[in-house]
């Protein structure tokens, strides 16, 4: 889905600004927020298995995906990241019994909101990666990176941009 570009007083008012052309050597930054017990362990397994994936992701460790405050996502997109990946335990496998269910609901709402204000839906992604799924983590990262590369650099909501 391509988000609609709204114009206000002649200034382009969208995160997905078609007016920006990426420099040729541009590389996106992706903020990966992973739960400690499944996805972070899974990403470690990717490492110990030496499975290669694109180097654009920066990983932050949280105890559970339910710890992820929508604020973190917004702050990432506002400051440093071109995309955010949140990953937790598979439904039913949460180390903290039910945390990932809350995370999922909270994430969906956040995504819809960000979508509404003009972010492309692929900027914010969610996945389930268990501690045993090293190869899957690499695949997820590769896919997210690919998606974000297609979208190009993020036109941020910063004062100087208005």
């Amino acid at each position: 889905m391509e988000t609609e570009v709204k114009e206000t007083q002649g200034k382009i008012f969208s995160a997905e600004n078609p007016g920006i052309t990426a420099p040729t050597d541009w590389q996106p930054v992706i903020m990966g927020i992973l739960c400690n017990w499944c996805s972070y362990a899974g990403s470690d397994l990717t490492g110990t298995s030496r499975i290669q994936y694109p180097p654009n992701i920066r990983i932050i460790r949280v105890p559970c995906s339910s710890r992820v405050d929508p604020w973190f996502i917004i702050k990432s997109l506002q400051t440093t990241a071109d995309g955010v990946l949140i990953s937790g335990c598979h439904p039913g496998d949460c180390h903290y019994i039910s945390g990932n269910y809350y995370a999922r609901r909270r994430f969906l709402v956040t995504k819809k909101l960000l979508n509404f204000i003009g972010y492309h839906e692929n900027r914010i992604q969610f996945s389930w990666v268990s501690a045993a799924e090293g190869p899957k983590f690499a695949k997820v990262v590769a896919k997210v990176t690919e998606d974000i590369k297609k979208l190009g650099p993020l036109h941020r909501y910063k004062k100087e941009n208005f």
Partner: protein
Amino acid sequence: MARVGVFVCFCGANIAGVIDVPAVVQEAKKIKEVKISIEYKYLCSDPGQQIIREAIVQNRLTSVVVAACSPRMHEKTFRKALLDAGMNPYLLEIANIREHSSWVHQKDKKAATEKASDLIRMAVAKSIANEQLHEISVPVTKRALVIGGGIAGIQAALDIADARIPVTLVEKSPSIGGRMAQLDETFPTLDCSQCILTPKMVDVASHPYIELIPYSEVIELQGYVGNYKAKIKKKASYVDFSSCTGCGACTQKCPVKVPNEFNMNIDKRKAIYTPFPQAVPNKPVIDAEHCTMLLKGKCGICAKVCEKGSINFKMVDEVIEREIGAVVIATGYDLWDPKPYEEYGVGRYKDIITSLEFERMVSASGPTNGVPVRPSDGKVPKNVVFIKCIGSRDEAKGIEYCSKICCMYTAKHAILLHHKVPDSHAYIFYMDIRAAGKGYEEFVKRAQVETAATYLRGRVSKIYKKGDKLMVRGEDAQIGQVVEVEADLVVLATAVIAPKDNPALARLLGVSYDKYGYISEAHPKLRPVETAKAGIFLAGCTQAPKDIPDTVAQASACAAKVCGLFAGDTMKKDPMISTINNEFCSGCLNCIKVCPYQAIVTEEIPLGHGSKEIRTVAKINEGVCQGCGSCVAICRSMAISLAGFTDPQIINEIVAI
């Protein structure tokens, strides 16, 4: 002003082979809070830790960043190094530049180096917001609760009690003993089950550190590791155990006959009964569902014949409470009902029985005095067909897994059949013979050679009646022919399944269970006797199908875990838990709804300083909180923070790149 030290590890060539470590060190130096940035070959080695310790003291560091392997690997090692240098260990942050950079970007050294620098920047930024944290210590109630009085529960209770720790053993039925008490002889040694079990049962009853509560169930568990509170419902037995001598006059005279569960309903018991002669406690109970006195108010013969006057028809269920520090779940297993095997005519033919029914028949104290008979006409069978994997390894009708014990007990049944009826013959349909265990393969060989049981490799497809025989049709894959066996009796080795009450019990205890209803262990390999909830352990078939030796071993392992937990007077607990600043708490109490551990309670505090009016706010129970952070993210007034993962720490990380 923060003073951060950055230590970058080569990890031999693991990191340095891809990442330009000196460049990373230089890059780190550019961060204004970083006071020292150095590299070393192996930071986890003792000299490596020495470097960190010295640097902390010399530079009066306020936090430390180690750029090395995953924190899941060496966080504890480096925390210890900080502690040794006189620094709070929680001021450490680790930048995972091995698993997250050098190992996964081996082809792109430049990007890997840049990423490593970024990860260090993030770790430095986070560490600046780190706070000093201290381990929490929690008092311990030294009493264990064992749920289930089969061989697993008996063994766990005895081992814990032998360490002089009081045990409360709760058993659902009127007697302990469980499934093992129903068995005749046990593989692979053919020693009599009763002979080895009953002494242990008596030990349980007489042990000074064991409180045995039969005919009862756990109905509630609150609290947290070391400090649980359990509610136990004692079902009304209508017999006063303290005065009853167990003389048996009441059971003799009782006129009501009920199918005998202990004998798989082959014969009958009375409405007032002890499940079997060696029961512990050897006191009768009245089955309220069948007693005519309790149902219709007529009869009362048992009360008339009881010399001690122990019968009390007015008795009611009673709930008692126990404070305990640990729980052992040992609820055992059930057997799968083979009804879905319609092609075998299960339910239509009386001469198709289950293995446990056969087991009771061949038991010397069983309903047929140790001789197997055909339920249809009471004749002693000559040709007996045993069919394995009934419900096991059958996704279509039963369950996917292998029940583990059927291969062995079927070999045992073939041998026992031969002992009891020497001119009989056993045919065994099997798919694979799984006899992994000490002395097991030898035992199967005994069935094949000494007993000359005929093993046929194939799943039976159909059973039909011909005269008074049952025709059993299956393929013998070894000769590639379909064979039909004329059987007098067919014995189905039905699958082991989880007790149907397991999910309800698991929810009540707050532990997880798998799709079959078995209680889940914390880790399938490294923590096989613990559940994910601290202080709750599991033993025997409540986890998965097991034979007796494995069950006993696991029960003893549980006992060791319980004893370890109770070794000190207090327990240490990770300080990474939530705290609430009640000044900010608006009292919406959304946090209570999302907390998976019921660790948040309400608290009433004055509305303002010195105010007489009160308001309700949330409060964290330190002992219960596991530190997931659900409450932090849901708190709209940002009153809750999770130690080690506070909002400032994570935001610092995000903006650091």
